[in-house]
């Protein structure tokens, strides 16, 4: 064997030993593992759906501020589109790569708690959340009475209306009761000779689960009903309130005031829908899409069945919680407290960093005091009804199986709208299917 060959052999052996060592070392230093070498800062990962544009920048601002002012704990954000959020959460968790801090849609909270993904908030944080946020926001972030995170954006539902279309139909203002809603819808509806809808009086849309179900649940809550029972184990939609909502929607579709096949998110900005129930996030999009025509847009509380009826509507939301598999929960909760509770100066007033973040992107948090402070200073008046609704909104049910229950409700609403089912059949089928699936999830 020549010396040269011996050198080559040694080199290969060294390489063979060095490669696994290097891989092992780099694996140990991976961000999700937290501390690498002694003295290194803890690195917490945060998975959210703030994946692009102003949302991404809005979250990155406070995270950069934290990283610049905290030497021992750093936060690294990871973002995916909302449509991929649950899948990403699931896959990463199963692979043992779950993020330390997660930002789920509250609808999934029951499913995540049941799967052991979410860690309950420590008592001092739970107390802070219960004290600082509105009832609907706390309800969204809780499962079985236990708080699991800091509510972030909260969406309440209200009635968007086109002032110009109402004016042209001789209607003075937005409807306050369901009777007024129907009358306004019929008066504003216009069709051409071929049956094409030129103007929908009241927009009901099969666009997606959230649109279809959100509209219906907002009306259901306004009628004093709820989708699931108090204990979360059965559906409560087969009730007088549920029947009233299904009847109302059935009438509107049957009489041509609603055309569910039309994409309401395109039709309303184009002036082809007079009224529609939707969430507060839409105002920002409408401003961008409609330009000067946005001045025709008004927002009012969701009409109630009878005059002087108690107001109610639907609220949905997201929250920031800590993964049960997080190795540094204390640090993670501390970061969340700093982000969601500490007050900073914003435009001459004080508010939490999260409140400032959400308002900067045209959204709301469940902190009504912050919202009043921030929106009271030259904000869009159309956001006010959504802010007022924080006081009386009903949180979207988030029991285990809530996502499936929502999909089943959508299917049955669509079957009602398209005449596949009568009101009775739709109520009965929804109750049977949802009860079966929700009980399966428990």
């Amino acid at each position: 064997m020549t010396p040269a060959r011996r050198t080559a052999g040694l080199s290969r052996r060294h390489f063979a030993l060095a490669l696994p060592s290097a891989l092992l070392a780099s694996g140990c230093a991976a961000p999700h593992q937290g501390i690498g070498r002694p003295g290194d800062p803890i690195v917490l990962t945060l998975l959210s759906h703030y994946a692009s544009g102003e949302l991404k920048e809005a979250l990155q601002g406070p995270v950069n501020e934290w990283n610049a002012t905290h030497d021992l704990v750093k936060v690294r954000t990871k973002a995916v589109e909302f449509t991929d959020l649950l899948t990403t959460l699931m896959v990463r968790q199963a692979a043992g790569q779950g993020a330390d801090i997660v930002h789920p849609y509250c609808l999934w909270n029951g499913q995540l708690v049941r799967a052991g993904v979410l860690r309950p908030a420590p008592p001092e944080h739970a107390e802070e959340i219960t004290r600082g946020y509105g009832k609907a926001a706390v309800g969204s972030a809780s499962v079985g009475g236990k708080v699991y995170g800091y509510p972030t954006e909260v969406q309440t539902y209200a009635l968007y209306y086109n002032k110009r279309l109402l004016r042209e139909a001789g209607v003075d203002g937005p409807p306050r009761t369901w009777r007024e809603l129907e009358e306004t819808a019929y008066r504003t509806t216009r069709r051409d000779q071929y049956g094409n809808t030129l103007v929908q009086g009241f927009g009901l849309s099969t666009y997606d689960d959230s649109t279809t179900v959100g509209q219906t649940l907002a009306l259901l809550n306004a009628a004093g009903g709820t989708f699931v029972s108090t204990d979360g184990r059965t559906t409560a939609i087969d009730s007088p309130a549920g029947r009233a909502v299904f009847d109302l929607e059935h009438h509107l579709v049957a009489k041509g005031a609603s055309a569910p096949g039309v994409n309401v998110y395109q039709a309303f900005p184009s002036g082809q829908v007079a009224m529609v129930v939707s969430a507060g996030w839409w105002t920002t999009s409408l401003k961008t899409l409609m330009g000067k025509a946005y001045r025709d847009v008004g927002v009012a509380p969701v009409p109630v069945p009878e005059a002087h009826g108690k107001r109610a509507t639907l609220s949905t939301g997201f929250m920031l919680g800590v993964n049960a598999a997080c190795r540094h929960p204390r640090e993670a909760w501390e970061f969340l407290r700093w982000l969601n509770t500490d007050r900073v100066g914003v435009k001459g007033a004080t508010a939490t960093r999260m409140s400032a973040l959400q308002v900067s992107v045209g959204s709301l948090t469940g902190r009504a005091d912050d919202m009043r402070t921030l929106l009271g200073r030259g904000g869009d008046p159309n956001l006010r009804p959504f802010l007022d609704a924080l006081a009386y909104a009903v949180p979207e049910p988030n029991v285990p199986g809530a996502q499936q229950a929502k999909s089943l409700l959508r299917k049955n609403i669509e079957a009602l709208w398209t005449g596949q089912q009568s009101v009775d059949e739709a109520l009965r089928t929804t109750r049977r299917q949802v009860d079966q699936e929700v009980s399966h999830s428990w």
Partner: protein
Amino acid sequence: MVNATLAPETTERAAHDDPAVGIRGRDRHRRRQVAVAYLFLAPTLLFFAVFLVLPLGFALLLSMSRWSGFALGDIDPVGLDNFTGLFADGSTFLAPILTNTLLFALGTVALALAGSVLVATCIDKLRFQGLWRTLYFLPIVTTVVAVGNVWKYMYEPGGLVNGVLNALGLGSVAFLADPDTALPSVVVVQAWASVGSAILVLTAGLKSVPESYYEAAALDGAGPVTVFFRITLPLLRPSLLFVCVTQFLTGLQSFALISVMTKGGPGDATNVAALEMYRQAFSYGDWGTASAAAFVLFMVVLVVTLAQLWFFRRKGEDA
């Protein structure tokens, strides 16, 4: 210094002297060859093990378990409960979901096959055949999302299709919003999108039909219809079998187009097995039901494919 190329000769000479040594040597040589063959096959076998056998085994395990998809330690065996649940009273899996799946696949195959035979026969008689084939193949290279969205706009009440109907004095049709027309409307799009690949296969099949058959038919005075049904179609059978089987498989498993165009609605009017499986697993966290549905769909695909092969073999076509 020993020349390595002489080594086998030495072995052969020794084997010539002693038959037992020769047999042992040949065995050793064969074993070495087998080992080398497996060594070369190892990457492929490993690939199949990791990406086929392992997921298949895992899916089989999940089909008989309850699992939310978050922690591997939470897999809870439930026997055949997931399968019985799929066919239980009130379940929507058999009807309308599985029925829709079969209708979707059947409709797609029928339309795509008829369309592609017609177009391929026409193209075969035209100049610039490459250009025509490319034009018809374009939908294949376009993303499903783009195709689905464009057709969705065309089907809308103020869209192109209704515009044409209105121009003809007919009323508008809510193609995707009406449960009676939603599935056929999506079938048309799927058939349109898949006709290109079928045309490619069929034009290649048409090229392989000997010209002498057509000349003989012309001498006998056969008309174009007789030539098509007595010569072209029977000799296209191998290509038709291929198109039929592959299109049916694609149709039974596809869900992307439906997801883009209708999301399975209105109600369950266009819901198909693959879309339901995706929802059960990734949206509802019910991996057991999703995996059980996957195995049921697998059985359906197997039965349909075997039936097609049997049918064509009965007609004398070798699969």
